[in-house]
């Protein structure tokens, strides 16, 4: 189902196939952990998507490439009392 849905073409039995299959199984364990929040208001769901055959490291390396920057704290623009009136 995953291979079909996300157009994966790993040759069955190949080293790559085994690696991806293992990573896919790991992702199922991860989904279980992420979905097991005890908070009653938690509505987030985690499951199979196009990233389910990537390791967490691969995912970070490919997709999480924004560089954080330190920016000043926001402060509301000052309005004089006359303007407020």
């Amino acid at each position, binding site marked *: 189902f995953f291979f079909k849905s996300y157009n994966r073409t790993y040759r069955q039995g190949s080293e790559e196939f085994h690696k991806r299959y293992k990573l896919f199984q790991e992702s199922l364990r991860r989904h279980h952990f*992420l979905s097991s929040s005890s908070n009653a208001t938690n509505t*987030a*769901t985690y499951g199979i998507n196009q990233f389910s055959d*990537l390791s967490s490291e691969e995912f970070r390396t490919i997709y999480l*490439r924004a560089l*954080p920057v330190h920016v000043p*704290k*926001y402060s509301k623009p000052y309005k004089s009392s006359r303007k407020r009136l």
Partner: protein
Amino acid sequence: LPAKFDWRDKKVVTPVRNQLSCGGCWAFSIVGGIETVYALKGHPLLELSVQQVIDCSPRDYGCNGGSTVSALSWLNEIKVKLVQDSEYPFKAETGTCHHFPNSSFGVSIKGYEAHDFSAQEEEMAQKLMDSGPLAVIVDAVSWQDYQGGIIQHHCSSSEANHAVLITGFDRTGDVPYWIVKNSWGTTWGLDGYVHIKMGANICGIADSVAAVFL
């Protein structure tokens, strides 16, 4: 603040894109913001070139990463005209910067502001309504497996690593949330969007917030 607000309702948000295996989220988030603010000025809603920003922003690293603020600073300093996506299409890899004649059509920004809104998400919501969508940087490690619902856990407010665009918020339910446009295609999350709980700086969503002016 209204209970619910979403720039998509005004038909000024372009469709969700897919950055494929290019680490150019920083470019997708700011270009998405510029597209909406341009439409809010009474122009047609156009898809502008993300590839141009990826190839040309000098202090960033193309598909190997970059910063929303440094890219906005470059766009503002040089008054770069962003051409349409159809003229300079996305290739999912860093390429050589193409230059266009001054006479050709393009959208340039007049300015931008970037602030830390942590513990001030009400003000941040006001900024979203006043200025347009907000480009933010979040910790998206757990988003690898996200399918839907409101994210409230499993991410940090001190490890920003992914740039996205906030288009709205919804405070009508028990858990108020930001409506966030991602660049991982429409099959990911909620048709390409993710909902993040408001008011607790979840995933560091309020730590680095940028708005553009046109």
